[in-house]
């Protein structure tokens, strides 16, 4: 289990950096989806099965579809971006920020390990998943539906060319 978690953590880091550094918006969106999928696997392995399903379906799946739709509507790619954007110096401090953030996360993780709740076994949670999703997280389902509607409207408003009525 630990090997899977650490491998996925590494993949998440790599795809996360690629999402920021790639100049093609399309490739960047795909890298973000891959980072999100790796996070979903970590959540599953740590017992947060419903969070993993949401992460993979919404963040990795649906959000990527919205991003790709928006990119295809706007037709913006590397060739349209100003030269300034391609300046490699903007990433000079990125490794330092990542290292400091990593150290801070490790310190927080070590200092709070004693107060962490014991993860619930995956099988038990899986049995209750339907009940938890539909009965205990009712408000969140409505919230998710409204987020999706807002996202779709946002793509239409910001990226569609021409005047709307």
């Amino acid at each position, binding site marked *: 289990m630990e090997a899977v978690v650490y491998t996925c953590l590494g993949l998440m880091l790599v795809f996360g950096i690629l999402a920021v550094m790639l100049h093609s918006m399309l490739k960047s969106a795909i890298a973000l989806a891959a980072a999100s999928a790796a996070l979903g696997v970590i959540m599953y392995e740590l017992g947060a099965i419903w969070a993993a399903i949401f992460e993979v379906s919404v963040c990795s799946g649906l959000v990527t579809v919205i991003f790709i739709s928006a990119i295809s509507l706007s037709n913006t790619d590397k060739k349209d971006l100003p030269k300034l954007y391609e300046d490699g110096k903007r990433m000079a401090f990125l490794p330092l920020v990542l290292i400091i953030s990593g150290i801070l996360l490790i310190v927080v993780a070590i200092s709070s390990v004693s107060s962490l709740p014991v993860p619930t076994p995956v099988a038990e949670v899986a049995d209750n998943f339907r009940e938890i999703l539909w009965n205990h997280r009712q408000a*969140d389902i409505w919230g998710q539906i409204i987020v999706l509607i807002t996202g779709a409207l*946002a793509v239409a408003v*910001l990226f569609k060319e021409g005047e709307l*009525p």
Partner: protein
Amino acid sequence: MRVIANIQMVANIAVLFFVIPLAIIAVNTLLPKKLAGRVSFYLGGFAGIMQAAAAAADFFLLSANRLHEYEFSLLWDLSIEGSERFSVDSLSLVMLFCIGMVTIVSVLVAKQTVHDRKRAYVNLLMTLILGMNGMVLVTDLFSLYVFLEVVGLSSFILIAMFKTDTGLEGAFKYLVMSVMATVFMLTGLAFIFMQTGSLQYKHVGMNVLRFQSHSQSVLIYAALILLISGFAIKTGAVPFHSWLPDAHQSANTAISILLSGIVIKVAGIYGFIVLVDLFNEVPAINMTVAVIGTVSIITGALLAMQQNHFKRIVAYSSVSQVGYILLGISTGSTLGLLGTVVHIFNHATFKSALFSNAAALHEQVGSLDINEMGGLEKRMPVTAFSSVTAFLSTTGIPPFAGFWSKLLIIMALWKSNMQVFAGIALVASIFTAAYFLRIQKKVFFGKLPDKYENLTEVKGTVKFAEIMLSVVTILTGVFFPLALLYLKGRGII
């Protein structure tokens, strides 16, 4: 039997807070383009009127049954244990009424200021209402965060939707600050979940006192710092206020009314109310909120004095006025909460009035630079009267509505042994008067420039909004003691 029927009616009405905006999005999207262009604003106005009416009806039904709170589910069966994920109470109903009122004003102003993208404006207004309604109706911190995201996303698109340079810049600043707030809040919620094992209000309130070890205390305090920072960003409180004047100035005035009139209160202030309520056993939280409030009052007022753009002054005034609201919350008392809720309502009213004045000036004068104006009360008497009424209410002059809310907040501070903060709040009213006197003098009084000789008063829905808000401000001030007696008689306070 009749009481039970009434109570069921509360739930039936409360469902409308979600159903009406969703239905309007569906209808507005499915309408043919030309028809949508003609009826979109009427649909938006209908949603605002229904929201205000539903909130008022539920408020009177609850108080008639002497109930403080009523839980309900949305389409799911309430009999399933744990499915009551929404709840209405006196506070949430006042917030819902304010959302409806500000929506009506925004649509009235939009009718004259939004010339294209009408359908998109109304659809996004509905998602904004859905987000705000959800925030005040949920009973779980994570659900609160989910709906907060809806509010943030809708606000960002509303600011950016007309694609002007300033609008896009304001939207980008709002987006960056909003993302920071999101990261802070999610991390804070994760820390609380690690400690309590639940994010439902009732469980957090009970379990938070169980932290005993040093590491557990550190975790809870870290969570509180992160959550306070997140909500302070959303509120536009100092030192997290940098996005607010740019966003409010650059947005279309119909959208500035929404942002300043209600969004900062639901997305930020309501979060503070929930936090102080859940963590009232942590003494540092009250003092932290009080300090943020005091600094916001003074800094917002001082910055407002230095501005020359009408909307920018009103935006900085919002920074200052939310400081008063935060001071009311910091007392943690019933009196303080009452003052807070009344000031939220009053602020929604007079800030909407001031932004309606901005819309009127922009329509007629064509500029919002106060140095280019003067003597406009001779040509725009309704706008001048509305502006003076809003100014007197903001400053807290009796018998206008703002007087009562500020009085309640200062009394609550005094009774909570926070006399220093009460003194500062009182003295800071002079700053409020200073920047508003400057704006009134430069815009409406003095000599009328020759170029404005042929200027006329604004007409149509903007004028109607100005008159309506002035009437509400005056009537609220005059009849407020009666409202207090009603609330006391019904056991609400």
